């Protein structure tokens, strides 16, 4: 039965379902060495739309008092139209005009497009072929490639602006579902959608071809799913993370690990299962791409151990945290043992991956030897971090507001869901750590070309924390309950 209640929210959920379904089937086909049919992309869209129109979703919360002038939503719509129009035009006019977008992301989109199996298989199965970013995840290239095969080279580039529109809708509607009045939710959407760096013509912009947008989408979906207690959103986001960018593997692991402390058990299990499924679909393929001679089984091993250990460790930590399981100590003991075994095995795998040029593995393997040099760079690091958070021309005021609210939180009422505080804090710590891992001699360049993009990935989560909090402070309503107290039941 098709349901028409909360139709806007259902439309917002079509994209993540579409990405998850298409990504899963595509990865399995690539592992099996089978070509991706053109029809798969639209077929997955139809299935995703059918699912989104049939699932049960919680109704939008209603508030008797709606503050704000009636023209405010229209101003926000106009701003968002101008913003989306600019990046839509940029995507439609030419291919990517920024280096990495052109030489890596766009090229791999063409290489993995349906009907191109021979070239993709030939170039990735034999050493000697020049394959840019060989070990990078493939979800975005697969989607853009399929979109181009379906709509043509130019119109196919509209896939990323479409993701941007859905992300804006996700931010705004999540705010609404967290109890924000309609006018405030529109302002929240406009605040996020006009973030200068998303609209810039440089690296990380929506039409630059980089994968920052898709990663920001998955992170926001994850955070929104946790605070709205949606198993579907959390599972889908966790599934997508390993397929987007290498750093998303780290984000996914850390987010799932923090989940038992800020969310209930079902959400935690959903995230863990989704993330493990994503790993199992991606790592064998990563293994094939990294090692075309087929000699290594490192990634299979890593996938099997990492995902199974992850589930057990997560379960144990969760149970231990809640003190509800009679055999907590035994489970923790098993989990810790498995974790140690995983770390030992992973350290061997790390060297194997580093030998194949995997960027994260290379950085981690070289970390101990250059530790003194890195520690000497700490003042420079701190200055770089501060400059990043306060870079108004890139992020507006979102990080300044987030930090100010966190500093003043004891003097403020109605703090946001603790999960959002933890996720954003985790994200910021991870982006800072990433700068600690990069080669010290390239630090200035890395701050200029990488750190800003890492922070950009978290802007949607930051607005999800700041928006409802500011709204609740400005318009407290009759009760002083926490913001998320009004959220709908789990769906």
């Amino acid at each position: 039965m098709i349901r028409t209640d909360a139709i806007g929210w259902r439309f917002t959920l079509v994209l993540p379902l579409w990405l998850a379904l298409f990504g899963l089937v595509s990865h399995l086909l690539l592992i099996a060495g089978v070509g991706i049919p053109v029809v798969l992309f639209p077929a997955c869209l139809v299935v995703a739309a059918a699912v989104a129109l049939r699932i049960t979703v919680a109704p939008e919360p209603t508030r008797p008092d709606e503050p704000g002038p009636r023209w405010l939503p229209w101003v926000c719509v106009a701003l968002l139209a101008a913003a989306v129009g600019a990046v839509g035009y940029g995507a439609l006019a030419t291919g990517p005009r920024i280096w990495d977008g052109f030489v890596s992301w766009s090229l791999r989109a063409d290489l993995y497009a349906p009907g191109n199996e021979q070239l993709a298989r030939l170039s990735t199965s034999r050493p000697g072929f020049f394959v840019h970013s060989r070990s990078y995840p493939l979800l975005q290239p697969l989607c853009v490639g399929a979109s181009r095969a379906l709509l043509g080279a130019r119109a196919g580039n509209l896939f990323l602006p479409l993701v941007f529109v859905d992300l804006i809708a996700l931010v705004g509607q999540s705010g609404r579902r967290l109890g924000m009045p309609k006018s405030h939710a529109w302002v929240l959407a406009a605040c996020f959608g006009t973030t200068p760096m998303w609209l810039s013509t440089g690296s990380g912009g929506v039409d630059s071809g980089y994968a920052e947008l898709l990663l920001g989408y998955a992170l926001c979906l994850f955070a929104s799913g946790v605070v709205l207690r949606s198993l579907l959103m959390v599972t889908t986001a966790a599934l997508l993370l390993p397929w987007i960018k290498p750093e998303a593997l780290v984000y996914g692991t850390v987010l799932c690990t923090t989940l038992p402390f800020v969310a209930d058990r079902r959400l935690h299990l959903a995230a863990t299962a989704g993330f493990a499924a994503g790993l199992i679909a991606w790592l064998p393929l990563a293994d094939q791409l990294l090692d075309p001679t087929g000699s290594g089984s490192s990634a299979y091993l890593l996938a099997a151990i990492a995902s199974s250990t992850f589930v057990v460790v997560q379960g144990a930590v969760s149970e231990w945290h809640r003190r509800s399981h009679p055999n907590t100590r035994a489970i923790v003991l098993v989990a810790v043992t498995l974790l140690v075994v995983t770390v030992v095995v992973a350290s061997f795998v790390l060297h194997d991956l580093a030998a194949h040029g995997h960027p994260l593995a290379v950085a981690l393997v070289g970390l101990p030897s250059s530790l003194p040099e890195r520690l000497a760079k700490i003042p420079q690091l701190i200055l770089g971090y501060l400059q990043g958070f306060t870079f108004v021309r890139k992020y507006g005021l979102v990080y300044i507001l987030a930090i100010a609210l966190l500093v003043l939180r004891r003097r403020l009422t109605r703090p946001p869901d603790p999960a959002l505080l933890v996720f954003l804090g985790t994200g910021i710590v991870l982006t800072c750590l990433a700068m600690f891992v990069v080669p010290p001699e390239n630090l200035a360049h890395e701050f200029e070309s990488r750190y800003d993009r890492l922070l950009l990935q978290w802007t949607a989560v930051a607005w999800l924390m700041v928006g409802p909090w500011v709204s609740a402070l400005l318009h407290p309503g009759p009760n002083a309950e926490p913001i998320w107290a009004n959220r709908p039941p789990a769906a």
Partner: protein
Amino acid sequence: MTPTRTIQRVLVVAIAFHLIFCASRIPSKAWRKRFQQVDKFRAEGPIRYFLADYADGTVEAVEWLAENTPERSIVLYRGLARSAIELANAALYPRLLFDANASSSESTGISGIPFASGTHPTLGTGTFVLISSAEGLRLTLR
């Protein structure tokens, strides 16, 4: 504790500043700059747009290969596997780039796809090889 009026005013001002500041950048930074970038890209083409700052002959070498070799061919390269060669790899697609050192000197192709070869006005006839360095690219024969 109820938020003070001062905090509420500061928050309203901050959100308004954010929106007005971001909105004010849309016409110049999101639209005008994008128009200029697109115009430049269209006028120069991707090869000159990205490679103009490299050594003399880089743009010409890649443009000549793009115009004079079949799309279904493999271009040999030798030297540095980053910098300008990354761009050549993307600009020459669907031609693939293959390390000349990994192929035998007698082979004429891989898996039925021939190496890019032909007659160059100054280099003569043979199989083309792109020599890659940090400064740029140059074309030669194997």
